[in-house]
């Protein structure tokens, strides 16, 4: 079991989770309102500086950010194909800044704190009788908690291919990953039920 959380005592660690999430929401809006490339460049550098406060090595950072960074590059290249280079650079800088900010907040906020904040944010929905706020908090917490787990599962299935002298292919990777993930989800759902964690008020 792995976690995206990085233990530490940085300024980001000490800030309240609620404030961090509100700042992230504000920064997201700002990033999409701004369209000046130099300004977006400055914001990207600031986001990188904030991420650097975590003190992670370049290798660790690359491992954590690689999947989403590759996705951003693909989106930027696609934009380059269908739009102007300026627009592609804008997309690249916006999404990279957003990724760095979100990653910094995820790395400095425990999942328990995330669950508490999301539960608090969802309380109006509970008052309207639409759903239980704690279930929403738990769902979001579980997503954050199991992202690294799914990546680990991918690595173990890929290594199993290598061990058997097989070349990993999308289909032969995807099928066992889906089956194992669903099986694990079943067991975790049973554990959540057994511990009476669902439907808490």
């Amino acid at each position: 079991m792995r976690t995206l959380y990085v233990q530490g005592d940085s300024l980001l660690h000490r800030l309240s989770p609620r404030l961090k999430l509100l700042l992230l929401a504000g920064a997201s809006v700002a990033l999409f309102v701004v369209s000046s490339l130099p300004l977006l460049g400055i914001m990207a550098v600031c986001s990188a500086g904030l991420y650097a406060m975590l003190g992670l090595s370049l290798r660790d950072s690359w491992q954590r950010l690689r999947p989403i960074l590759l996705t951003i590059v693909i989106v930027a290249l696609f934009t380059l194909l269908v739009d102007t280079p300026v627009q592609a650079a804008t997309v690249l800088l916006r999404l990279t800044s957003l990724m760095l900010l979100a990653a910094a907040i995820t790395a400095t906020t425990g999942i328990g704190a995330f669950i508490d904040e999301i539960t608090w944010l969802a309380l109006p929905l509970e008052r309207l009788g639409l759903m239980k706020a704690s279930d929403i908090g738990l769902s979001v917490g579980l997503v954050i908690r199991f992202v690294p787990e799914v990546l680990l599962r991918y690595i173990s299935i890929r290594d199993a291919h290598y061990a058997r002298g097989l070349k990993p292919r999308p289909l032969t990777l995807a099928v066992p990953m889906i089956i194992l993930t669903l099986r694990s989800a079943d067991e975790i759902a049973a554990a959540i039920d057994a511990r009476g964690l669902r439907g808490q008020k």
Partner: protein
Amino acid sequence: MDIRFEEAEARFEKRLILHPLTLSLSERRIGVIGLNGSGKTTFVRMINGLVTPSSGRVSVNGFDTIKDADRVRAETGFIFQNPQNQIILPILKEDIALGLKSRKLSRELTDAAVEAVLSRFGIAHLADRRAHELSGGELQLAALASVLVSKPGILIMDEPTNQLDLRNRNLVQFTIDGLEESVIVISHDLDLVADFDRLLLFHQGRLAADGNASDVISRYREIAA
């Protein structure tokens, strides 16, 4: 502890997994043994309502596992075969605190309860550790703490010594022996359950033997031969 099965059976789709069963359990330490696929796990999952009877009734301390599912789960803690999936949050103390959320305790009281249960199992030093960093024995103790923090009177454990080395296996046995709660343990480790008050043997979805440990283990050896 008062657990009752009244003609309770379990089906998965149309397949009969557990034949109609009538029995009551009140002993403090009960072992459940049998070959793989004999219906042991289905049986214990019926006790805390994870599997509901397709006919008949199961009750725990007077509470029906279907109608009073929440109450039954509050009365029965469950430790799964793979404690990795039992620990929902990565940091141990956060995970244990999660089990107390429904009580709406203050932060101080929650922290005190978490510390108390960790100390009870001698793992207070692991409070800030990530679950993936724990050894097999530590992980079992962590799973125990995460379940017992909400103070269920009955604890069900599904193969608690599975895949543990001898030292960790002995640690888990020592811990089970010292538990104040009533325990129901599924195990292939016959030494673990050899001095339990009562053993149940399942075979091909039926209760094949029920009684004192030595008799039931002898019967199991005959079946397994």
